[in-house]
C-alpha cells in the first residue's frame, strides 16, 4: 500500500468521522447576535442582550380577522384562554377583564406601597374627610355598586388609584370586551412566549402551539389569524429561505449535473465532483462545532456559499485529463496551481478567523478547514478513483483562438474600471447598517409587523433612558428621581409618554415612606371617626379598612417575585434587567418630538447612572463597526492572497498580477451593485469574498501555462466548465424572491463574469521560473 493510498484512506476516515459527528453531536444555534460585534459599551451590551433575551423578542402580536366583531371577540377570548393554559406562553392579554383579575388581587394586596397618592396629608382628618365625600358621591352614582364592593376595606380608593395610575396612556379600542384595531375589523392580542426571541426552535414550537390553539378557538368560524414578533419573523423567514433555497438547489443541481454530464459523460465521475465540497463542508462544520461549542445557522448558510469555490476543484483536475492520460498525470501538471488555489482561500480565511467576531470567526474557520479538506480530497483521493482510461469530452471553444489582448485593450479596461469607480463614488456606496436587516426578512413580513404594531399601539422604541446601578433597588430609586423630568417633558408635549419600572415596583425607600405616611392604627381610627362626623358613614363598617391599613403599614416590602405572572410582572421584566452583576432599568420614551432637548434636560437633572440612549444610533454604530472590521479582514485577506501567490510563484510582481483581476472584479462588482442602487450588507460582503476566491483561481489557472505562449485547450476547458457551473448555480440563486439569496446570487454572478473578463483582459504574469512540475 502506497503512502498516497494511506493518505487517501486517512481522509476517507476523517470525512466519515465528521459525518458521524455532524449527524449526532452538532448543535446549531440560530441566534443571530453571534454576528454582532462584541459589545463595547453598556448600551451595546444591553442592545445585544435585549435582542437575544429581551421581552420585545418574546412578544407576539396577534390579530384575528374575517368575521363579525362579536364572533371575533369570542374567538379572541377562546384563544386567550387556551394560550393562558399553554406552557409555551408566559402571559397573554386580549384586553379581557377576567384575565386581569389576578393583577387586581396583587394590586389590592399591595395598594399602600404602590399608590403614589399615599401621603400624610391624605391620611389626616381633612384628607380622610375629602376621601369620604368622594366615596359618598361615587356610592350615589351609576357605579355605586362597584364602590360599595370595596368601600369598607378601601375608603381612600387606593386600588382604583393604582389601576388608573398604571393604565397605559393609549390602549387599543375595545369591542365586546376585548381589544380591536382602530378600524374595529380585527381583534388584537399579545402573548409572551417562554422561549427567548433568539431561540428559533423554541419560537417555532410556540408558533405551532399558537396555531393549534387557534385552530380550536376558531372552530365553526371563518376567522383567520396573523401574528408577528421578532422570534416569529425569524422562524418564518428561516422557513421561507430554507424553502426557497431547497427549491433553487434542486434546479441548480440539475443544471450543473447536466453540464458536467455533457463534459464528463460518466455518472460516477459527475458524482466525484460533489465529493470534495461535501466532505469539506462536513469536516468544516464539525471543526467549527468543536471549536465554538456550536455552529451558528448563518455560518452554515454562508459557509456553504463560500465552499461553492470547492465545487470547482475537481473540475480543474478532471478537465485537465487528456486522452490516454491518468488523473495522476493531470494532477502532476496542475498540482502546484491547485495547491495555491486552495491555500489562497484558506489563507484569506485566517483574516476572518482573527476578526474576533464570533460569527466571522466561525465563518473563517469553516472556510479554511472546508477548502483545505476539499483540496486534499481532490488531490489525494479523487485520482485513485477516476477510472483508468477515462477522459473528458474535448471542447474546442472558439474562444480558444483568443490572442492575448494588446496594450490598448488593457488601457480600455483600466478606463472602464476607473469609470465604474467614479460612478460608484458619485452615487456613494450605500451601506445597509440597519440591524434589523441582519435577520433577512421578506418585505411582507415587515409590513405585517408594522400593521400589528400600530394596531396594538406598540411602536418600536427608538429613544430610551438607561439607568445603571449596582443594585436593583438603586436603579429603581434613580428611576423615581428622573420621573419629574419626564413628567415635565410630557406636559411640554415633547414626549407622548414613558414607562417607569418604579411605578410597578417602587424602591424600598419609597415603599417605606408610603408605609410611614399611614398613621398608627389608633391614630387612624381616631382621625377616621373625626372625618366621618356629619357624614352618613358608619365607622363600625370600616373594620376591614383599619385591618388592611395596619397590615399595609408593617408589611414586608413588595418584591419583583410578588408580581410574577401578572401584567405588572411582565412589564417589570421588560424594563429591568440584571447583567454581569449590574442592574439596568430602561425607560422607553414614546412619541419623542425634540430628542436633543429631552436629552439636555435629562443630562441637566444629573441623576447618577441615568443615560440617554438612541437605539437606532447605537445599532447603526454596531453595524458600522461590524462592517469596518469585516472590510479590514478583507484587506488583510487580499494581502494574504498576494503573499501566498508570491511564495508559490516566487515573484511578487507575478503575485500582484495574479491578484489584480480578482480584486478588480470585486471592486467592479461592488460598483455595479452600488450603481444598481443596492444597499450593501454583510451578505454582499460574504458573496464578494467568494468572488475574490473564485477570481483568484481563474487567474491562477489562466496564468498556468507551459512553454507555449497561450493557455492550453485543457485550460480553456477548465475555465469553461467552472464558469458555466458557477453561473448556473448562482444565477439560479439570483432569481430567488428572498432578498438575501437574491443578493448572494446576483453578487456572485456579477463577480464571476467580472473575474472572467478581467482575467482575459489584464496582463498575465510571466510563467514562473520553475514552471509547473
Amino acid at each position: 500500500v502506497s503512502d498516497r493510498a494511506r493518505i487517501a484512506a486517512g481522509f476517507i476516515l476523517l470525512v466519515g468521522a465528521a459525518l458521524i459527528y455532524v449527524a449526532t453531536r452538532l448543535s446549531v444555534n440560530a441566534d443571530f447576535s453571534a454576528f454582532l460585534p462584541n459589545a463595547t459599551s453598556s448600551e451595546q451590551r444591553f442592545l445585544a442582550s435585549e435582542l437575544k433575551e429581551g421581552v420585545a423578542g418574546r412578544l407576539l402580536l396577534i390579530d384575528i380577522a374575517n368575521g363579525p366583531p362579536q364572533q371575533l371577540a369570542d374567538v379572541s377570548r377562546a384563544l386567550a384562554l387556551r394560550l393562558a393554559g399553554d406552557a409555551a406562553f408566559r402571559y397573554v392579554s386580549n384586553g379581557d377583564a377576567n384575565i386581569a383579575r389576578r393583577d387586581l388581587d396583587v394590586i389590592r394586596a399591595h395598594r399602600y406601597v404602590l399608590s403614589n397618592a399615599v401621603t400624610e396629608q391624605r391620611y389626616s382628618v381633612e384628607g380622610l374627610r375629602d376621601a369620604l365625600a368622594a366615596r359618598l358621591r361615587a356610592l350615589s352614582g351609576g357605579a355605586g355598586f362597584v364602590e360599595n364592593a370595596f368601600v369598607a376595606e378601601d375608603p381612600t380608593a387606593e386600588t382604583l388609584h393604582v389601576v388608573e395610575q398604571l393604565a397605559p396612556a393609549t390602549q387599543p379600542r375595545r369591542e365586546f370586551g376585548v381589544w380591536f384595531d382602530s378600524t374595529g375589523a380585527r381583534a388584537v392580542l399579545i402573548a409572551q412566549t417562554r422561549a427567548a426571541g433568539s431561540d428559533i426552535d423554541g419560537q417555532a414550537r410556540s408558533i405551532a402551539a399558537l396555531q393549534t390553539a387557534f385552530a380550536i378557538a376558531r372552530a365553526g368560524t371563518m376567522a383567520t389569524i396573523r401574528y408577528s414578533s421578532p422570534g416569529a419573523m425569524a422562524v418564518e423567514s428561516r422557513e421561507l429561505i430554507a424553502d426557497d433555497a431547497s427549491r433553487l438547489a434542486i434546479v441548480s443541481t440539475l443544471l450543473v449535473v447536466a453540464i458536467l454530464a455533457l463534459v464528463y459523460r460518466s455518472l460516477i465521475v459527475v458524482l466525484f465532483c460533489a465529493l470534495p465540497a461535501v466532505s469539506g463542508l462536513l469536516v468544516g462544520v464539525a471543526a467549527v462545532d468543536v471549536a465554538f461549542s456550536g455552529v451558528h445557522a448563518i455560518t452554515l448558510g454562508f459557509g456553504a456559499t463560500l465552499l461553492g469555490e470547492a465545487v470547482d476543484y475537481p473540475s480543474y483536475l478532471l478537465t485537465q485529463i487528456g486522452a490516454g492520460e491518468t488523473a495522476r498525470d493531470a494532477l502532476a501538471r496542475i498540482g502546484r496551481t491547485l495547491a495555491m488555489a486552495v491555500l489562497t482561500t484558506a489563507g484569506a480565511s485566517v483574516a476572518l478567523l482573527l476578526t474576533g467576531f464570533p460569527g466571522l470567526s466561525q465563518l473563517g474557520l469553516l472556510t479554511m478547514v472546508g477548502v483545505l479538506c476539499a483540496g486534499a480530497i481532490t488531490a489525494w483521493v479523487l485520482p485513485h478513483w477516476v477510472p483508468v482510461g477515462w477522459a473528458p469530452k474535448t471542447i474546442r471553444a472558439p474562444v480558444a483562438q483568443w490572442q492575448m489582448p494588446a496594450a490598448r485593450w488593457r488601457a480600455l479596461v483600466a478606463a472602464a474600471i476607473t469609470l465604474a469607480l467614479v460612478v460608484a463614488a458619485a452615487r456613494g456606496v450605500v451601506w445597509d447598517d440597519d440591524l434589523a436587516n441582519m435577520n433577512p426578512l421578506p418585505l411582507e413580513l415587515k409590513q405585517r409587523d408594522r400593521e400589528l404594531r400600530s394596531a396594538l399601539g406598540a411602536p418600536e422604541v427608538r429613544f430610551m433612558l438607561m439607568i445603571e446601578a449596582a443594585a436593583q433597588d438603586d436603579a429603581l430609586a434613580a428611576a423615581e428621581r428622573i420621573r419629574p423630568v419626564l413628567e415635565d417633558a410630557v406636559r411640554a408635549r415633547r414626549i407622548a409618554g414613558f414607562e417607569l419600572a418604579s411605578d410597578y415596583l417602587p424602591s424600598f425607600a419609597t415603599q417605606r415612606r408610603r408605609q410611614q405616611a399611614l398613621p398608627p392604627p389608633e391614630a387612624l381610627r381616631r382621625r377616621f371617626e373625626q372625618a366621618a362626623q356629619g357624614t352618613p358613614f358608619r365607622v363600625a363598617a370600616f373594620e376591614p379598612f383599619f385591618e388592611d391599613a395596619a397590615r399595609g403599614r408593617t408589611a414586608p416590602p413588595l418584591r419583583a417575585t410578588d408580581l410574577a405572572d401578572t401584567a405588572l410582572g411582565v412589564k417589570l421584566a421588560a424594563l429591568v434587567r440584571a447583567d454581569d452583576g449590574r442592574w439596568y432599568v430602561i425607560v422607553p420614551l414614546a412619541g419623542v418630538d425634540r430628542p436633543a432637548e429631552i436629552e439636555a434636560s435629562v443630562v441637566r437633572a444629573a441623576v447618577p447612572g441615568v443615560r440617554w440612549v438612541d437605539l437606532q444610533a447605537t445599532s447603526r454604530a454596531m453595524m458600522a463597526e461590524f462592517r469596518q472590521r469585516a472590510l479590514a479582514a478583507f484587506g488583510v485577506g487580499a494581502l494574504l492572497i498576494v503573499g501566498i501567490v508570491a511564495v508559490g510563484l516566487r515573484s511578487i510582481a507575478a503575485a500582484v498580477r495574479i491578484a489584480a483581476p480578482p480584486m478588480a472584479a470585486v471592486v467592479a462588482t461592488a460598483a455595479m451593485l452600488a450603481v444598481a442602487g443596492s444597499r450593501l450588507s454583510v451578505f454582499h460582503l460574504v458573496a464578494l469574498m467568494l468572488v475574490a476566491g473564485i477570481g483568484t483561481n481563474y487567474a491562477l489557472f489562466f496564468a498556468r501555462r507551459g512553454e507555449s505562449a497561450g493557455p492550453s485547450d485543457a485550460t480553456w476547458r477548465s475555465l469553461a466548465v467552472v464558469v458555466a457551473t458557477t453561473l448556473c448555480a448562482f444565477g439560479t440563486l439570483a432569481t430567488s424572491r428572498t432578498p438575501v439569496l437574491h443578493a448572494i446570487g446576483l453578487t456572485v454572478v456579477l463577480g464571476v463574469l467580472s473575474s472572467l473578463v478581467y482575467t482575459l483582459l489584464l496582463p498575465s504574469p510571466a510563467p514562473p521560473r520553475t514552471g509547473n512540475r
Partner: protein
Amino acid sequence: MRAVWQLLWLAASAIGATVFAAPTSFDVTRLMSMLAQVDRSSVAFEETRHFSALAAPITRRGTLSFERPDRLAMDVVTPFPETIRIAGSRVSIESPDGRREWDMSAQPGALAWIEAIRASLAGDAAALTRSFDATLTGTEAQWELKLVPRDERVGATLRQMTVRGREAQIAAIEIVDRRGDRVVIALKPLERSRR
C-alpha cells in the same frame, strides 16, 4: 376590573316594565308570557340603596326604559343627573364627570345579571331558568318571583333577586348582595306599548 363591579350595579339598576295579562293557571311560564307582551316601556323609578357602610340609605330617582330586544336606559335626575345605557353587553355611563363605557361580555357573572333582568322584562322564561332557580309565590293579583343564581361565579357577588308585581306589572325589584347589602327599585308606570 373596575368594570366587574360596575356592571353588577348597572345590571341591578336596569329594570322596569309594565304588562297586562289575562288570567289562567298561574306559574313562572304563565307570568313570563304575560310579561312577554310588552314591546317597550318607560317607567318612573325610585331606587333605595341600603349599604352597610352608610347609616342612612341613598335614594335615586328618574326614568327607566326598556326596548326589545335588549336595550335598557336609565335617566337619573337626583341626587345628580346621569344617564346609563345598556345595549346587548355594552354599558355606558354619562355624568357631569364624563362618559365611560364597558363591555360586559367578558364577565359571565355580571352578564348573567343583566340577562336575568332583561329576561324578566322580556318574559323569556327559558333564559331565566337557565341561570337562576326561580320560585313564584302569591297570586296573579300580587306575586313574588324569587331568583337565586345557579352559577357560583354569579353567587359570589349576588345572593338573590326578588321581583314583585301586581298582575302583569312589575312593581319592585330587590337585589341582595352576598354581604346583605340591599337595593330596592320601585317602579311606577309612565307609558307602555304592547306588541
